């Protein structure tokens, strides 16, 4: 593993048993997370983005099993040198004691279901600090809790620690969930659609907060979302997932200004443009494939107007476009016919580029 990487997933396979059938939800994915960066994983429901992070945290349900692959994580124990562990080889006890919550923390989508309605928020934040022995006493834990609430932008934290989740608004609750995630000063923070349940103004505040916290604490972030429009603001790099595979990966600027995979085109085109009312918004036809019997070639071929014959036969490899930009599409093969991205998207990107050259 390279020096600057904190997490590396190599050729991971994950399936779930459903009666006699096997649902192959993650199919040979590889990606990495650099220290201090934000990686956005983008895809539709069912693309496998959430379950990937659950695999990292060792939170796979009992009917799930890992095939080949490894999840390398750079971790340190007090007083010892950094070591690299393969999280797929560790048992539940290890994950609970040394990884989950303390080294890798997660924020879920719905703040109401991830908080305990019968416990004050102060208690909930203190709980993991005490459990992981990050503080010496309850008094210290309380002092740190108040600091944390202040850090995530909750006013009058001394008063708020004694309140219950139902006494807070949705945005405030999500801030509390973030405070809980940060309680043990994790190295990696996984944000699983943290703003999907919130409205636009609160969404932008939470995104600003996450960005700000990263600056202050240097935490590395995996940001999961279905909306490419949301993450332009926060992501350093973007990985686009479809049907259990990563189909395109690159720096945010590469994905937004120079997308190469037809699925990425589809996702970007279905965001309505703010200037002018187009006749019809581009929408990706059809639905994602059933992964009990995954398609042989490129899984997106069945929904793509750009599909080539070979797409139905053989899985495309990852073609390299730059040092940081990769895409799995046969369209990038040297002998493939030249096709252009949807017109709406081409127009929008041309407008971006024009503005960029003016500056």
């Amino acid at each position: 593993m390279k020096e600057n990487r904190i997490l590396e997933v190599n050729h991971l396979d994950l399936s779930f048993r459903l009666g006699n059938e096997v649902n192959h939800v993650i199919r040979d994915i590889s990606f990495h997370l650099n220290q201090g960066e934000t990686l956005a994983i983008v895809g539709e429901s069912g693309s496998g983005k959430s379950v990937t992070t659950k695999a990292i945290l060792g939170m796979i349900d009992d009917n799930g099993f890992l095939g080949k692959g490894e999840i390398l994580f750079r971790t340190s124990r007090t007083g010892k040198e950094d070591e690299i562990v393969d999280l797929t080889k560790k048992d539940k006890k290890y994950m609970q004691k040394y990884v989950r919550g303390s080294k890798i923390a997660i924020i879920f989508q719905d703040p109401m279901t991830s908080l305990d309605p019968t416990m004050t928020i102060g208690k909930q934040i203190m709980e993991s600090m005490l459990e992981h022995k990050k503080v010496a006493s309850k008094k210290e834990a309380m002092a740190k809790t108040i600091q944390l609430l202040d850090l995530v932008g909750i006013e009058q934290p001394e008063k708020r620690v004694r309140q219950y989740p139902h006494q807070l608004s949705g945005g405030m609750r999500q801030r509390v969930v973030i405070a809980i995630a940060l309680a043990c000063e994790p190295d990696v923070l996984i944000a699983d659609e943290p703003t999907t349940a919130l409205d636009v103004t609160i969404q932008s505040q939470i995104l600003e907060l996450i960005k700000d916290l990263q600056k202050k604490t240097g935490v590395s972030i995996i940001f999961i979302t279905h909306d490419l429009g949301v993450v332009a603001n926060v992501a350093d790099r973007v990985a686009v997932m479809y049907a259990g595979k990563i189909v395109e990966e690159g720096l945010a600027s590469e994905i937004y200004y120079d997308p190469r995979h037809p699925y990425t085109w589809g996702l970007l085109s279905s965001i309505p443009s703010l200037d002018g009312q187009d006749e019809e918004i581009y929408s990706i036809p059809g639905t994602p494939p059933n992964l009990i019997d995954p398609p042989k070639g490129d899984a997106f071929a069945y929904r793509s107007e750009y599909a080539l014959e070979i797409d139905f036969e053989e899985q495309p490899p990852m073609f390299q476009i730059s040092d940081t930009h990769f895409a799995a599409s046969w369209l990038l093969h040297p002998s493939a016919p030249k096709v252009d991205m949807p017109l709406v998207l081409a127009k929008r990107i041309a407008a971006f580029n024009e503005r960029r050259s003016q500056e």
Partner: protein
Amino acid sequence: MSANVLLEVKNLSQFFRIDRHTTIRAVDDVSFHINEGETFSVVGESGSGKSTLGRTLIRIYDAHSGSVTFMGREIGGKLSSDSRKFLRKNMQMIFQDPMASLNPRKKVLDAVAFGLDINHLSGDKNERLDKVVKVLKSVGLSEDHLTRYPHQFSGGQRQRIGVARALIMEPRFIICDEIISALDVSIQAQVINLMRRLQKEHGLTYMFIAHDLSMVRYLSDRVAVMHLGHIVEMGTVEDIYEHPLHPYTKSLLSAIPHPDPDAEKDRKRFVYIKGGVDYNIGTIRQLSDTHSILATDEEFSRWQQNDYSLFLK
């Protein structure tokens, strides 16, 4: 755009009494109209009263005060049974969460035909079936789906069932309460395209309740911005998006995310200062024929001079 007014709302209020000391003014003295064939959107944060407004119009709640005229009939006060029938047929609503609004134990056929059944409009068995099949096809579902249950559908398909259920009554006016916010972006586009196609085919009038401002801009003719139960600014899409005057509108617009990383990096967002404006003392002022705003004299002159120091940070 036709100038025929389909729905006119005057000084509508909806209060909820919590106890002796507290009354929540969810909708507070709101007036607007909706023209026939247009799409009118109501935007605002959660708790602004936009859903309550929609629910009051369709009489899920009884209004506290004010009048509502729909297709020339008064439907704000007590309803005669004739008016009630008229309202149920001509005004329909589609809800946010398609799973929660469908009975999990009812097949699609019965769920969609329910409106016909309770209004005794279904006719004989074949007629009922024909009607349901026709409406399912128009929303992009097929006959095969008739005998399935809601859990056998994806989110986008369920929302299509919700649309079919509203459409089968052949209404003139549909209230769409956050119908796409529970769906994936790619599916949102499908549902929106469907709604626009249906609007053209059936000459429908829509009231969209939403917080996604980029979608609202795309599909609306006119927009009302709601905050704390008041309509603070109202106008055509161009008025609201190109020439917003109210600080709350400005803060909402500044929060829309753009799929453009470079522009996002140095974008300035405004935060609306709570309590900066007391809506109860402001009055409605017309900026143009179409554009109006709620403000006091002082606020109005400040905003026109582009002085927002007291209201935005």
